């Protein structure tokens, strides 16, 4: 199965939930489960193209180390977390439905820390 390689960055304190590691180089399958389940699945599973919503679930299941409520809420990132796709506000790119392409860089920044 073919894979897509992408870079994920955390900022604004969000990295503290991810082993204090800011930058993560990932390789994820081009087709993923439509229900965003990140465990291995069989042939009968409905699939979709890899999108940011799936990436968020995957990060929660495989990289997040603590306090999931500070990262996710209602199947997306918690309000107050900004997401950029290749240095563009994800609100201009379809948010969670943006289909990730090979070499993409996705940045998550918390606005909720400190002043």
């Amino acid at each position: 199965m073919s894979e897509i390689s992408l870079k994920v960055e955390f900022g604004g304190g969000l990295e503290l939930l991810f082993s204090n590691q800011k930058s993560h180089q990932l390789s994820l399958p081009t087709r993923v489960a439509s229900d965003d389940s990140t465990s291995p699945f069989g042939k009968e599973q409905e699939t979709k193209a890899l999108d940011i919503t799936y990436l968020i679930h995957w990060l929660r299941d495989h990289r997040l180390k603590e306090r999931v409520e500070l990262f996710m809420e209602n199947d997306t990132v918690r309000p107050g977390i900004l997401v950029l796709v290749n240095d563009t506000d994800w609100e201009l790119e379809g948010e969670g439905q943006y289909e990730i392409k090979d070499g993409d860089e996705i940045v998550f920044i918390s606005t909720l820390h400190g002043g």
Partner: protein
Amino acid sequence: MPRLCALCSAQRPILKRPKTGQQICKTCFFHVFETEVHNTITEAKLFQPGDRVAIGASGGKDSTVLAHVMKMLNDRYNYGLELFLLSIDEGITGYRDDSLETVKQNQKEYDLPLKILSYNELYGWTMDSIVEAVGRKNNCTFCGVFRRQALDRGAAMLGVDHIVTGHNADDVAETVLMNIMRGDIARLGRCTAICTQGEDTIKRSKPFKYTYEKEIVMYAYFKRLTYFSTECIYSPDAYRGHARSFLKLLEAARPSAIIDIIHSGEACEVGEEATKELKERKICKRCGYIASNDLCKACTLLEGLERGMANAGITDRGRKQLEASGPTPDGLRTIPFFQMNTDTPLDSASSTPIPGQTVDARIPAVVHVTAG
């Protein structure tokens, strides 16, 4: 056909503005961000040429961006301001000591004089030692009261009469919500004011009053400004946290919610009756700072700490218990007397002890005086 910036129709948009929904490019974003802050400053007539202004710098995103923008606007529009960075060191190991490193970096980048005033210097207590003494229940009360007074005193030491802080539109909206939820109507009308001034305290202004947090963080990101972003290890103010989450949910559903809440606060005409309490201001008998009782909040809190009765400054009952337990003992540690002294600024980098009083060698600015 790629989308184009709503303002210049030339470049690719990189950001959706929460305030307007416009999709704009990086160049236009920098321009509108800076220009809106400039307009806020000029419309409110915040400054006069020659003003000495301290930027309250915590090393966090808001004050880091504020320092950057204040410096830039002062140069670009010839405000004629003398700018300083003022930081308060609460004495929180692993939190404030790290963020102060960020402030020191800002000092070098922006070439602004920096004054750091610590709780330990001023009160003889660090937040670490306060938490050790009072636990984690009311520590935010101590920190809030101590920080407010420390900022004023730091400003007086720098000879400035105006502090600008990084409070943004989200912060102001959150405070409006909190005042409503607490029924604090007197503060409701006041908390949206862009500039506040007590009778002889130092002016405080919020140039980012109408600036969305999202844009501040985006600005820092695109300008590659480095800031410190760790939650205070003692912070959990649960109530404020709920207000914040609620506000962010509202913003997600309708981004104008933040500015709408600020406008609601501004529109609240606060009646005479409600503001009466706030107007009755005295001078603290012990330290000369603004007070609503004989002693200011900080002196009451400090006396409670010193006498092992930490609740004295928190509840009325605690204050009565303290008063009932006898007069203030001799040799109690107190805060140095506060003098607004803008004509003769102290140019020394550290706080200066008051002549003629004994000074504890270990804690430079804390004096022992005989009560009476």
